[in-house]
C-alpha cells in the first residue's frame, strides 16, 4: 500500500466531478481526485495514485519513468495492480 503509482486520466465522471477514470498499465478504475483541489486534471494528464486518490499531477515523462521503475520492482507493483483491480470506488 505504500506505493504511489502513475495513472493516465481517461475521463472525469460527468455526474461525479471528484471522481476520474484512470488507466494504470491497462487496468481501468475510478479514483478520487479531490485532493488536487482546483487543479483538476484533464483527460490525457497523469497523476500519482495512492490508495485510490490522486496525490499530485506529474508529467508524462515522469509517469513513464516511474512506471518502468515499478514494473521492474516486480511483485510489489503487481500486488498493487491486483489490489487496484479489486477496487470499485463509486
Amino acid at each position, binding site marked *: 500500500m505504500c506505493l504511489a503509482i502513475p495513472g493516465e486520466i481517461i475521463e472525469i465522471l460527468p455526474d461525479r466531478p471528484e471522481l476520474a477514470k484512470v488507466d494504470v498499465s491497462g487496468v481501468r478504475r475510478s479514483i478520487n481526485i479531490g485532493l*488536487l483541489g482546483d487543479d483538476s486534471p484533464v483527460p490525457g494528464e497523469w497523476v*500519482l495514485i495512492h490508495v485510490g486518490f490522486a496525490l499530485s499531477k*506529474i508529467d508524462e515523462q515522469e509517469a513513464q*519513468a516511474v512506471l518502468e521503475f515499478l514494473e521492474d520492482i516486480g511483485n510489489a507493483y503487481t500486488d498493487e495492480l491486483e489490489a487496484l483491480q479489486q477496487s470499485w*470506488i463509486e
Partner: protein
Amino acid sequence: MRFVDEYRDAEKARALSAKIADLCEPGRQYKFMEVCGGHTHTIYKHGLEDYLPENIELVHGPGCPVCVIPMGRIDDSIHIARQPGVLMTSFGDMMRVPGSNGSFFDSNAEGTNIRMVYSPLDSLKIARQNPDQQVVFMAIGFETTAPSTAMTLLRAEAEGLRNFSVFCNHVTIIPAIKAILDSPDLRLDGFLGPGHVSTVIGCRPYEFIARDYGKPLVVAGFEPLDLLQSIYMLMLQLTEGRCEVENQYRRVVPWDGNPVALRTINETMELRPYFEWRGLGFISHSATRLRERYADFDAERRFELPGIRVADPKACQCGEVLKGVLKPWECKVFGTACTPETPIGTCMVSPEGACAAYYNFGRFSRERVKEASRV
C-alpha cells in the same frame, strides 16, 4: 524510451558515484539515513550500495507504516473484529502483521471477517452494501495515506453513513525523525527525506533538522539515480559547510506540499498526546486520532478497546532495525526463524520493510548473512 534511460542509465550512476567518491574526505565515515521504506526497497533492489564508496553507509529509517504498528494495535483491531456484526477492512499489507495472538489472517481462520481493500473508499462501498454490519476501516499510514482516510470520512459524513467507522492508526513522520535525532544510539551525517510523504507535507517541516540539529536533509525520489543524486547533494552540503533542506524530487514534491490534503487531515484529525511505535516506544504527538466532531465515525469511541500494551517478542530486534542501529542481517532470527513467510517482526512483512527488502534482494547482503551465520 529515452526518458526512462534518463533516470536509470548505469553510465550516469557511475559518473555520480565517482563524483560522490571525490567528495569523501579520506578516513571519514559518513552515515545517511533513508527515512522511507520505499527508498530502502530501491537501495536493495538495485544494489545501490555497490555504487557508493566504502566510507558511506546508508542506514534504514522508520518510514514503513506497516513496520511501526505495535502489537497492541493489532490485538485491538482483532478485538474490534470479534464484536458481533463487525466487518473489518484494511490494506493487504496488514493481513500478515503478527499481533500477540496471530495476524488478521489467523484471526479470520477463527471466524472474524477482516477484508483487504485497496482504498478506504472501497470500505465505504462495503458499508453501503452491508447495512446490517458495522464496517470498520483499520487505517494505517503516514501523511501520504492520512488524507485518503480524511477524505473518506468527509464522504461518509456527507452520505450520513451510520455503519462506518475508522480505527485510526495514522502516524506522523516528523516526531519519529526527532526521536531518532534525540536518541543517543546513532550518529548521523544527514537524511534522505521521504518522497511521497513530502508531496503532502512539503519540505518546510524538515527545516528544524538543519536548523536545530545541524543535519542536512535532501528530499529524494525513488529512482536509483534520484537516490544517488540526493546522496551527492548531501555530500556537497557537507563539503561546502552548508546545512539545508533541499528538494531533489522537485518534479513531484512542491516545497509547500499539498494544501488541500493538509487541510483535509486537519479538519478531521488531531494529534494524539502520544502513540506507541513498534520498537521505538512511546513518541509524543506522533499519531493522529479523529476529532470530536467525527466521534460517530471513530471506532475507538464506538467499541471498547482493551488497549493493552504488548511487549514485542523477545527474539525480535525490529526496534533496533527501525532506528537504524542494527542492519537486518544482524538480527538473530533474520532469515532463520523470521522470513517473509513466517514473520516474527513487522519489518519482514511489508515489502518496504528493511528486513524484507534485504531478504528479497540483498545480493551482497546475502553474503553477509552467510558471513554472519559462520560466526
